[in-house]
């Protein structure tokens, strides 16, 4: 398993292929790619992610260990970019490998749900009207809450 926190752009497909190359007879792989969103009715110029890298690596490492154990994953990888990006660029990618699809899907969803609320990144959206810090979404808290168990209280 691996965690990468970087200002470098990454190639989603190349990352998936590198991840799949480590396949050990596993049957199911899930890749989630989070891209800079821009809606036609509310376009943004750029998205800047601020990061506290030392804390991000610690948080994501605990999280990935938890996901590996909880869903009996064969492998898992988190790549999270920070800095300034334009619409369509990949921000984050989570990949899981498991013997069956249910575990691969659940592991990837678990990682994304925790990452949204527990990884030290902050989003600043820039549009022609100016820059605003993105507020946390209530449904991100509820998405995280569904996995809640005493074992995870420390994350």
């Amino acid at each position: 398993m691996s965690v990468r926190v970087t200002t470098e752009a990454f190639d989603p497909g190349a990352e998936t292929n590198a991840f799949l190359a480590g396949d050990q007879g596993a049957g199911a792989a899930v890749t989630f790619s989070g891209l800079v969103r821009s809606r036609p009715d509310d376009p943004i110029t750029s998205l800047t992610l601020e990061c506290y890298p030392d804390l991000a690596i610690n948080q994501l490492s605990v999280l990935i260990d938890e996901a590996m154990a909880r869903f009996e994953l064969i492998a898992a990888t988190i790549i999270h970019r920070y800095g300034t990006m334009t619409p369509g660029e990949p921000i984050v990618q989570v990949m899981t490998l498991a013997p069956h699809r249910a575990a691969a899907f659940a592991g990837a969803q678990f990682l994304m749900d925790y990452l949204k609320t527990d990884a030290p990144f902050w989003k600043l959206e820039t549009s022609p009207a100016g820059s605003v810090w993105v507020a946390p979404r209530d449904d991100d808290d509820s998405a995280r809450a569904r996995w809640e168990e005493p074992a995870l209280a420390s994350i």
Partner: protein
Amino acid sequence: MKILYFAWLRERLNRGEEQVSPPDSVATVADLIDWLAGRDEAFALAVAKRSLIRSAVDAKLVPHDTPIAGASVVAFFPPMTGG
């Protein structure tokens, strides 16, 4: 002790980090917030709603009642919006 600030907290304080030397009576993260607020009105205003402030001690996310004895780096920041 080094203090780090991120996101809108950093912007409102107009600095990303600073060195401070709190007295021994400042025992926990919460004490540190109070002590920093006492010496800086901008900080006091920015952290007025304490529930919006998250903290980390030596790159570990911690609740505000965590002791800071021996800590080298304490970070303050708003709720995270990763992913």
